[in-house]
């Protein structure tokens, strides 16, 4: 396909679509086309592939430095820009399977759960027997960790998240775990509910997204207000009120 047959179509149009004087390429040819393609690709690559992301990085660093760096938080649950003091990201879940922490949702990342360098879901089909087997094991684990709690388990606490890095779980999932945490950390359920409420957010503007609890922040707060193991002889429902934000 060459661009040299322009002369045959040299008639001019002044149709409504092309309000300009239209003209077909006078010479053109393959070389001119290659040149245009190569130069345009290069310029666009520089513009959209280098200038644009770099400029955005620069602006973001000025306007939203914490978010741009990955929303890192320190052990106190406070935002930090220092990678050294960071213990995680407010946006990225971490795995907890000790019974004295709120358990997050199951994660299917490989090789370990909540591998934030390799996100992903289980991709198990809804009728896959493996999925059912996993659910059964998780039910068992939850029941074992809290013998006697026969409340129905909220679905999100049994199912692995899409990213494997879900920082949140439903309020129901957190509530389900209150008896276990309360017992192990010697806290009253009411206190725990309040703590959960503190780390509950959404839906945004009352409309967007779901109401969820940030598990990492909740667990960090737990450690601050009621460290585990509780000090020997500590009174029930002790609270180090000074550390609660």
């Amino acid at each position: 396909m060459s661009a040299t047959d322009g002369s045959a179509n040299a008639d001019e149009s002044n149709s409504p679509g092309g309000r300009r004087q239209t003209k077909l390429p006078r010479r053109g040819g393959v070389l001119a086309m290659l040149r245009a393609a190569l130069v345009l690709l290069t310029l666009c690559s520089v513009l959209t592939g280098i200038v644009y992301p770099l400029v955005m990085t620069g602006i973001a660093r000025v306007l939203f430095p914490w978010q741009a760096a990955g929303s890192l938080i320190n052990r106190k649950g406070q935002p930090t820009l220092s990678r050294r003091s960071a213990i995680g990201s407010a946006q990225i879940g971490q795995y907890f399977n000790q019974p004295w922490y709120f358990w997050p949702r199951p994660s299917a990342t490989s090789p370990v759960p909540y591998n934030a360098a390799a996100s992903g879901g289980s991709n198990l089909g809804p009728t896959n027997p493996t999925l059912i087997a996993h659910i059964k094991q998780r039910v068992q684990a939850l029941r074992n960790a809290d013998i006697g709690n026969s409340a129905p388990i909220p679905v999100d606490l049994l199912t692995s998240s899409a990213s494997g890095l879900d920082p949140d779980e439903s309020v129901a999932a957190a509530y389900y775990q209150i008896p276990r945490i309360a017992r192990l950390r010697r806290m009253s359920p009411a206190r725990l509910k309040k703590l959960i409420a503190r780390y509950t957010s959404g839906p945004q503007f009352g409309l967007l997204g779901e109401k969820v609890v940030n598990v990492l922040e909740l667990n960090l707060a737990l450690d601050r207000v009621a460290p585990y193991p509780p000090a020997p002889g500590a009174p029930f429902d002790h609270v180090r009120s000074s550390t609660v934000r």
Partner: protein
Amino acid sequence: MTGEAWISIGLLMLVVLLLVKPVGAFLARVYEFQPLFGLDKLFGPLERGIYRLCGIRMDDEQNWKQYAAACLVFNFLGFLAVYAIQRLQGSLPLNPAGMKAVPPSLAFNTAASFITNTNWQNYAGESTMSYGTQMAALTVQNFLSAATGMAILVALIRGLVRKTTSGIGNFWVDVTRSVLYVLLPICVIFSLILVSQGVPQTLERYVHVKLVEPFVAPAVASGAASRPEAVASQTIAVGPVASQEAIKELGTNGGGFFNANSAHPFENPTGLTNFLEETAILLIPLAFCYTFGRMVGDTRQGWAILAAMVILLLAFMIPCVITEQAGNPLLAKYCNQRPTALQPGGNMEGKEARLGPVNSAIFDSTATGTSTGAVNSMLDSFTPLGGLFPLWLIQLSEVAPGGIGSGLYGMLMFVLVTVFIAGLMIGRTPEYLGKKIEAFEMKMASIAILVPPSLALLGTAVACVIAQGVAGIANPGAHGFTEILYAMTSQANNNGSAFAGLNGDTPFYNIVGGLIMLIARYWTIIPPLAIAGSLANKKIVPAGSGTLSTHTPLFVFVLLGIIVVVVALTFFPALALGPLAEQLQTFAGHF
């Protein structure tokens, strides 16, 4: 379906539809070379500089063959660039994680995928691609493949509008203006909003943190062979995410920075980002309807097509939301899936808690309907019917509302077929917007309509019978078949979303998939351009009362009927062996 679910859908539609007119009008100004509220002053020197360096003039017109050749050459060079950067990324800058060269077949698949606006990903971004590759190869093609789709559409519209001429515009100019005046400005604003919500935008290396409590991974969670040693740290992948995320949605590309795509908390951290990403996905494909109406001088024509697109999208989105919110019947005896004030409930496997089943189903339907292919939840884990609707949306040949540019030019192919059949029914040689639709147009429209379903069906057939194809399947039985069907359908329609269980990073899937994406893209681009060329040469017949009205509800109804019968039902037998069989077989008591 809960009231909240209806509100979520309603709100999204409301906001998008409110934006259609202003954005559509702006787009029309871009392609008709009208003043752009100062933006043209800002970027004008840059634009003219680009043309000067390229050796082109803004008023050079191309005929359809020249236009198509320019498109193919430009995309082919883009393909070479993406391939080369992936292969060489080990020795290129901006590689803090030290990613090695991408293997050849995967690099081929990825290059084909990104130049075709498919963004099918047989790789996991955070463990395969360096920052440099994500930016200079993938982000660039996110822009350029979108701009290509926009240019083709505009050329087709010009073909409809102009009379007795052979020029349909200039590909270089259309691409440049699409990038400079549409995609880039919106992306700048959009990526800043994303960052404010918690999307990273940094070139620093991945973050290593010490865990609060080291743990021993249980076998059940990972699925992989458990290692007894304790895990004490977490590596958090970050990067220039926001800048890529913005164009990924706006350009209906869908290729995630991370493997988990928009389910990843860094790509889609809040309800607001989720909503804005859905809006960005739908924005330009729907706004183009108004642009189309403006450019052809009758906005009713655009609204009619928009109505058809929205009806189709909602017809598939709503049942998807219903089935996902209803949950997985097989899990009912183990857990509580009921939506309450304290939990979203529903089928939560492969979904994020902050998004819940409703926003997951809306997002994935939106992304499959627009050929975006982004996901905020794992389709493989959707209920059989919940997964059927996104799959079927893709099988509509991506016209509800379809990809950026490509959705509308694809829809116009169906419009031509509808005009042809409906035109016959009123006893006239069919005409659309005053242009006679004859054998050549029918031939080209048939090719454009035929290619995607044919590739999907054939690709699935091949993968079903050869060992390399079957080997990729992750789930047994009918679901496994759905995985193959989904993968081939997604690539054959340049969507890119996946039933991600299927292991696609094998030479077979990389090469076959890559070829399918290339054929599907360019054989749905060339026919509309040929039609544009042919129509531009024709006279415009003035409309009278004997002319078929193409803006009426009746026409929309016929158009929808044609789409459903010609493409949607074609997949009915295949769907019967996949999601339908799975649903009826396993959930026999719940159907």
